[in-house]
């Protein structure tokens, strides 16, 4: 009996030799337990050592292997061959420039991530030596879901608004800002609001919801953005109608 095979149609692009991207087809053996990343590793090991792609953990933790598989942004390590037809098209993440083959240029996202200050900002009067800051389970629950983001950028590839407006801060960065804003140990919300409550911040979002559909860690960035919009609206009314109220 002949071995079942699947055909991987992989986008190839080498900026030093190619004027534009092209597709290359590779026959790969089919295994019930294989994911697309296994198929790419097979190509790299046995068929074509020049193929470039990012990966590290192979267990949906590192967030490196995000790519378009049959048009959908997925983690290649979480996309089982058994869930796809025998022809599988693999492309780099949508909305990002291509560095080489399946490797994208992620500078835009990294810069946006840094701008929202995704770290705890303690209150000014709090001594640095304050050793233990306890949190109740209820306080942890307020933000825990948003800590699960692995910065895989699938939400940016899925977001049509980011595709239309590259200046949009985007789902993951705003959801992470929201994660720290909701943390009882944090006092940096005012600083982050200056960034995320701007036009290019949360207000470029039209609640398409694709980010939450593709999120491999069920962070629900769309939900986070809606909460940010409501909080920013309350801020606006406080600042303009009740300027004497201290935030």
């Amino acid at each position: 009996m002949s071995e079942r095979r699947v055909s991987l149609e992989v986008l190839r692009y080498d900026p030093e030799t190619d004027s534009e991207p092209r597709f290359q087809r590779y026959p790969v053996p089919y295994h019930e337990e294989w994911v697309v990343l296994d198929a790419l590793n097979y190509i790299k090991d046995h068929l074509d050592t020049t193929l470039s792609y990012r990966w590290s953990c192979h267990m949906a933790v590192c967030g490196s292997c995000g790519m378009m598989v049959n048009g959908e942004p997925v983690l290649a390590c979480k996309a089982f061959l058994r869930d796809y037809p025998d022809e599988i098209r693999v492309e780099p993440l949508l909305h990002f420039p291509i560095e080489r083959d399946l490797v994208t240029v992620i500078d835009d996202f990294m810069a946006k991530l840094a701008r929202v200050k995704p770290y705890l900002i303690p209150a000014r009067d709090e001594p640095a030596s304050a050793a233990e800051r306890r949190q109740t389970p209820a306080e942890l629950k307020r933000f825990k879901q948003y800590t699960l983001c692995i910065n895989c950028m699938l939400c940016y590839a899925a977001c049509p608004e980011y595709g239309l407006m590259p200046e949009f801060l985007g789902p993951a960065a705003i959801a992470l800002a929201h994660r720290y804003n909701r943390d009882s140990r944090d006092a940096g919300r005012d600083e982050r609001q200056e960034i995320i409550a701007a036009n290019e911040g949360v207000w470029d979002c039209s609640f398409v919801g694709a980010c939450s559909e593709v999120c491999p860690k069920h962070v629900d960035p769309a939900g986070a953005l809606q909460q940010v919009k409501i909080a920013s609206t309350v801020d606006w009314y406080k600042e303009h109608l009740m300027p004497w109220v201290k935030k």
Partner: protein
Amino acid sequence: MAKSNKPVVWGLFAAGGTVTAFIMPALVLLVLLAAFGRVPDILTYEKLHAFAAQWWGKAVLLGIIFLALWHAAHRLRITLHDVGVRADATVAVAVYAVAAVASVAAAFYLLRI
């Protein structure tokens, strides 16, 4: 970057969406019932007319009409942007003006009841 003033238009949009989500299904059901000649007793013409004759009845009706119109206007503005119409300022003025004019008309006719 300065903070956006979009909360003003978005707040009304969000409120309109919430109101519409509750009112519309009921309205569809009642219109269907009425179409089949089965108007519930508390929704007869006389009772609804009496409701709209009181000042707070007018306020409730105008609130629902205004928020629903504003919601539709804002949704249309975003949809037009998404399908490629990039003149956002012009579109915004046009759709919000329609919502405002229709709301003023609603207020005018409500006050005549």
